[in-house]
């Protein structure tokens, strides 16, 4: 699902964010990406959804060669991914429903299918009673669940999460992780970047560790 071969990312002037990274995530796997702040976790994820371009090396995501992907095909790549961020990235002036349905609006899914799928995913995440609410009326955990709903509504092959529990307390964090587990069991490949060691330990999944831009365990 995800393959990296000798990937380097420099930000100029000897600032090496990633150094010769090799890794693979199989289809259907649940993998943690960990390391201290600044180790390169976020950079690596941003390379996967092509918000950044690798300085050298080859990156394959769901069969697409991201390292040589033209700008016009980036939307095609992103439609196959679900992305979750630490700061949720919800639109404050749109309701929960609109925030989730937007993903399908953007890709031209017909209205009635948008409604059906949005309600389905919100129900799965236990948010059906918050459909008309605005993000700022929700708790942090609920906001993150809306963000996850948005990431899942297109039924992505791969779910990427960058510190998804960074703004949540331990109990809510555990809820979110359980949710990811469920999603993974349903067939979605999950890659979660986090520095929360306790959480990783409790989950008992495959772990990849970055240290100063280098992959230290495999």
């Amino acid at each position: 699902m995800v393959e990296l071969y000798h990937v380097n990312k420099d930000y100029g002037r000897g600032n090496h964010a990633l150094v010769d990274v090799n890794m693979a995530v199989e289809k259907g796997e649940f993998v943690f990406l960990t390391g201290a702040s600044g180790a390169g976790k976020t950079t690596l994820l941003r390379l996967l959804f092509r918000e950044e371009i690798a300085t050298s090396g080859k990156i394959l995501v769901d069969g697409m060669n991201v390292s040589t992907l033209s700008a016009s095909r980036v939307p095609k790549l992103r439609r196959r991914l679900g992305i979750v961020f630490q700061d949720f990235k919800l639109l404050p002036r749109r309701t929960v429903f609109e925030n989730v349905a937007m993903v399908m609006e953007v890709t031209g899914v017909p209205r009635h299918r948008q409604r059906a799928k949005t309600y389905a995913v919100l129900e799965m995440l236990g948010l059906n009673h918050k459909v008309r609410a605005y993000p700022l009326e929700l708790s942090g955990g609920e906001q993150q669940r809306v963000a996850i709903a948005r990431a899942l509504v297109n039924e992505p092959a791969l779910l990427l999460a960058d510190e998804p529990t960074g703004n949540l307390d331990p109990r809510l964090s555990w809820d979110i992780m359980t949710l990811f587990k469920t999603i993974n069991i349903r067939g979605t490949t999950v890659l979660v970047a986090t520095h929360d060691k306790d959480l990783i330990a409790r989950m008992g999944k495959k772990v990849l560790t970055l240290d100063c831009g280098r992959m230290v365990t495999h």
Partner: protein
Amino acid sequence: MNLWRNRFMNLVASFTIAVSLLVLGLFLLLAHNLGGVVAAVGSQVTVSVYLRDGASEEQRSRLMESLRGRPEVDSIEYFTPQAALEKFQKLFPNMREVSSELEENPLPASVEIRIAEGHRDPQALGRFTEEMKRLPGVDDADFDLPWVTRLREVVTMARAAGISLGGVVGLAAILTIASVIRMTIYGRQQEIEIMRLVGATRTYIAAPFLLESSLLGVLGGGLSLGALYAIHRHLAKSQESLVPVLRELLTASFLPQSTSALLLLLGLLAGALGGLLSLRRISR
């Protein structure tokens, strides 16, 4: 809708477009009416052919005959020396005494040729006149064109002035639209970022902004047309004001539909261009 949310800035943007198109429109209106004057005067372009004193009746009728068949000739009129004198006295009443004191009529018989359309440019007229001079029985021939030519130059100049002045203000208008749209984009940065992340194409994101800027442009075009028409009507009604000639040239008739449509189209283009300029803000 976004247009309403930023209504003040949008109004400013439309307004600058309107001002630039109004400047252009005023000059175009001047040129349009001047063009009308030129056409009217142009139809009076004549070549006068003066007959030799001793020209025979036969020479005269042959001359008239050959003139009628020529493409340059719209119509001809023959003036006997007597008729020429009367015409002279009518044109210059103050000189009546001088002319009546003359013992002999000094004016020759002449043929006035009204020149057909398409043959009124100076060069063709010059050639035609030279040819006339060589005909038997003809003493001299001339045409008075210089001031018509000058009037044409004025029309061209008015048009050029309108286009260049309007162009400069238009450029400012395009930049204003661009910065207004840029502000709108800035205000929606978050939304655009999320749309990009969930796989919206650049076109999908850019289209609404482009539509908005184009709308602002058309609105500006409409405003300029409205203002131009208001000025046109107002001047027609008010008595005093302006140099009479200028007033005449602004009120004689309004811009033809095609030119009005052109102003709207220019507004649309200016808006779209401003939008495109600002869209470089949306990265990748």
